[in-house]
């Protein structure tokens, strides 16, 4: 007769918030019961009774927490509803419990997700309004240590274009997105040549995988590419943006990962923090994948976990697909190893070490098309991250057909006195120009977020 509880290697904090009273629309994949079956599975497995696994209630992120990351047009209140603030707040709670030493790891099982939300937000795109994980990281850096080195590993099947955008110029953040090839899936980006801004080349890495990648192919990338890179980068915190739409049963993608694969990849990545992203096979995948991630994070035996229709052959990879995966791996490794010598061809060199690019962003849910100009300063002062000017026009393609031109000045938390002065002057100039409906100053140094409106 024994009664020895399963041994937990890592104390794990869970922030579980299924938002049972919130949906984008009644039949949208991002709807009330998305985490219902996951919840049932977690309860039935009795995971919350295990000593060392602790559940925490999410807090609400504040307007300032959001403004630290986003330029919300017209303002935070209009774009971030309570559900978004709880989801972002849940990520903050997870980080807080980890940094307070209450747990060794934490998993924010919250919805709606955030990784398609860019720095500038004109509306909802890819089911996301605000970027939960970026809001969490900026909260961490503001509250604990501005010098934190962060590695994001985004394992959602879709390219993490939003998080990539927010950290494109930040040399302290390594952002790795592994996803289904953009030529075959929304949002159509995330090619290996997207490597970061001129001041942070190689700090953005994209690993586009062919459709039908299985556990074998995925774990090959983790072992051969990601783990050595992360080891070399030496981050203070590893964050897994844990999307679950790579699962073989997901209705929106064409990947073939199993719950076992998810548990194993999480165990290998060994993240301190994980934040849920997409995943819409809510009955056949999510219950098993989430339990797998929880078991892996806590360091528990997950060998008995499998989907009802799992067979070991599901984990194997055909030679042809594996060859393509190996080629992508080589390509990305080459970029990483030569990152000091890379020259950005996405950005045009202007005078005074300013760089320039234009991009177009489409908001599928809210039907908005955005034209954005990004002007980034590469500062020669030691440890200065320069500054950033953004001019953007949101074309609302719906019935109203109106346009919203805005400008924003971004001052990263590590910027020199000179940059701070230039940025503030630019903000005043933007306001005076009368060309924009809204002008924003995101001053992370002073933790001050200002908004000027034409009327």
């Amino acid at each position: 007769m024994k009664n020895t509880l399963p041994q937990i290697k890592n104390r794990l904090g869970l922030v579980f918030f299924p938002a049972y009273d919130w949906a984008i629309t009644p039949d949208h994949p991002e709807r009330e019961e998305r985490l219902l079956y996951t919840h049932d599975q977690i309860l039935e497995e009795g995971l919350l009774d295990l000593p060392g696994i602790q559940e925490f209630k999410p807090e609400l992120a504040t307007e300032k927490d959001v403004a630290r990351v986003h330029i919300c047009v017209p303002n935070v209140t209009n774009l971030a509803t309570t559900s978004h603030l709880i989801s972002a707040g849940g990520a903050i709670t997870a980080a807080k419990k980890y940094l307070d030493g209450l747990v060794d790891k934490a998993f924010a099982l919250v919805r709606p997700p955030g990784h398609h939300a860019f720095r500038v937000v004109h509306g909802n795109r890819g089911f996301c309004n605000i970027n939960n994980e970026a809001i969490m990281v900026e909260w961490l850096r503001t509250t604990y240590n501005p010098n934190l080195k962060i590695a994001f590993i985004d394992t959602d099947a879709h390219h993490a274009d939003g998080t990539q955008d927010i950290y494109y110029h930040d040399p302290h953040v390594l952002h790795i997105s592994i996803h289904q090839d953009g030529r075959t899936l929304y949002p159509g980006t995330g090619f290996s040549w997207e490597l970061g801004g001129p001041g942070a080349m190689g700090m953005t890495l994209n690993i586009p995988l062919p459709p039908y990648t299985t556990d074998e192919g995925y774990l090959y990338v983790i072992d051969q590419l990601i783990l050595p890179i992360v080891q070399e980068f030496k981050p203070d915190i590893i964050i897994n943006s844990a999307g679950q739409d790579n699962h073989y049963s997901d209705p929106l993608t064409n990947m073939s990962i199993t719950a076992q694969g998810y548990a194993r990849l999480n165990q290998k990545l060994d993240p301190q923090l994980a934040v849920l992203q997409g995943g819409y096979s809510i009955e056949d995948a999510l219950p098993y994948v989430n339990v797998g991630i929880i078991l892996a994070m806590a360091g528990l035996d997950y060998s008995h976990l499998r989907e009802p229709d799992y067979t070991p052959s599901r984990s194997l990879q055909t030679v042809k697909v594996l060859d393509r995966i190996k080629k992508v791996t080589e390509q990305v490794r080459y970029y990483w190893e030569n990152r000091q010598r890379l020259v950005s061809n996405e950005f045009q060199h202007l005078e005074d070490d300013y760089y320039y690019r234009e991009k177009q962003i489409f908001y599928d849910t809210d039907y908005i098309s955005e034209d954005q100009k990004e002007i980034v300063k590469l500062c020669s002062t030691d440890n200065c991250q320069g500054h950033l000017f953004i001019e953007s026009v949101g074309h609302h393609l719906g019935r109203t057909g109106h346009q919203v031109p805005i400008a924003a000045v971004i001052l990263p938390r590590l910027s020199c006195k000179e940059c701070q002065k230039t940025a503030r002057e630019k903000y005043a100039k933007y306001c005076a120009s009368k060309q924009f409906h809204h002008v924003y100053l995101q001053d992370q140094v002073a933790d001050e977020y200002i908004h000027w409106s034409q009327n």
Partner: protein
Amino acid sequence: MIIGIDIGGTHTDGVLIKNQQIHQTSKVITDQNNLTTSILKVLDNLLLNQDKDQVTRIVFSTTLTTNLIAQKNYPPTGLIMIPGPGLNPDWLKIAAHNWVISGSIDHRGRQVTAFNQEELNQLQAEIQCAGITDLAIVGKFSTRNPVQEKQLTAFLQSSLPDRLRNIQLGHQIAPVLNFPRRVQTTWLNTAVYQEYSKFAASVQRSVLERGITAELFLLKADGGTMPLENGLSAGVETIKSGPAASIMGFLALTGTDNRTSLLLDIGGTTTDIALLIGGIPLFEPEGVQIGNYNTSVRGLLNRSISFGGDSYVYKDQTGNIRLQSKRIGPAAAFGGNTPTLTDALVITKLMSKGDREHAFSAFEQLTENNDPNQIITTARAIIQQFYQIIASEVEKLLNELKQRPVYTIHELLTDSELKPEVVMMIGGPANALLPGIAEFLDLEPVLPRYHHVANALGAALARPTLRETLYADTEQRFYILSGKDEASGKQSINHTQKNNFTLDKAKKILLDYTTSLAVQKQNPVCSDDFVEITFEESFNIVRDYQTRGQIFRLEAQIKPGIISDFTDTFITKTNSTSPLSPERRVKP
């Protein structure tokens, strides 16, 4: 006449209620080896010169199950698990004989893997070989579909006729989600079955032998009663009925006080902490813990700390005088040798009984100081230490409650913080400690009358409780009611009903079912007015942008409460319009 008997670890208390008043009380030492003797002693004391025919109801709160589990006093009991995929189930092999067999049900109650007949044959041979008669069968998600638990039972009963006298099924004993708790609860219930039957039979027989024909009830962990014969199949529900009796005692004694109340029950070695909100006790979120076992038995929320009147006072290595969470013997003021918290109360004259000189000399020896003023100061400090211990435990409990998760935006935004307004205390030193602790916690003190027999009174006046659930899945066209009745289990929704099976319809089914159970309990106090829906959720099942059906999840209950006919007598009014007699309320 009504009788309540609380069989505690050291004492058995009884109270006889006649003409809506406490007519007689009795206290004897509990004979742990023969609980029936203790019960009969109390009964005889209570019924001296009374007309036994007038007794209509006797309620027992007993530590029997708790003791059986603590002493591992049960026959070798088997456990068959059908865990399906998930967490490695090896740690749940808590029985003398454990089997893990294949077969599985998923979260929507669909059978995913069927049994393997060869495996079943092997299992049957092994059970025969083990020679056991008591067996628990528990499947994962059996609450969503009990088919495999039932199928296995039928197979074993037909292949091993007459051998298995006591088979208990997880979906009946623990009908809420949580497989490990279902395993532990069902197995414990199976294990205590034989001893419990003996106890119930012996109590029934002895009561009858004394010519008493009253209905007999047991108090459950949730502060409700069940008929004694139900205890046979639900023995595990009586664990922790002691603290439940105490909370129900508070409820009986303070009746209509609807303020948020902190309850302290101080004994010799422990102090129990509980809460009443709007006159309703709180439940443990998942279920009651007993020893190392986590069960899904619904129980009243209670935190026990190992400090009480007999906690002794000692000098630590740095020379500080401290209160220790142990009992060495009785207080010096009451014939012991070691200074205790009670002695500190006697020294500071908070307690008028007891030998004050003895208390002083015990403190003198410890502090090596015979200045009476100095000793009084030390005694005060010890009492303050006790207040501090209580205060931090209360804070911990309130914090825990604050962290209780919620899953909707609405709940998160409307969640309000719990703030007790009054503190109520029962137990030996309650009189002496209440004013001070109330001042320390900045709460209004309420000292209930009859606080020395609160537990027995709580048992006597508790009414039946129920908690039943309904889970419906209209896409798969079934619903499941919790419980062991014929009406419970999986029911199908026929094709024509499918579209009419709404949340309201589900509610009605659950309310009717719960009410019918309440009536079956044959208790006049249990009218359908008491049945309430406590939880309801509905979800659309959407596939390919089409709604295929709904999932409904509901819970109904009869919450714990006091038999209404009797409350008035015991109310301690504390509202400002009716001034309190000093007997009822102590001012700080």
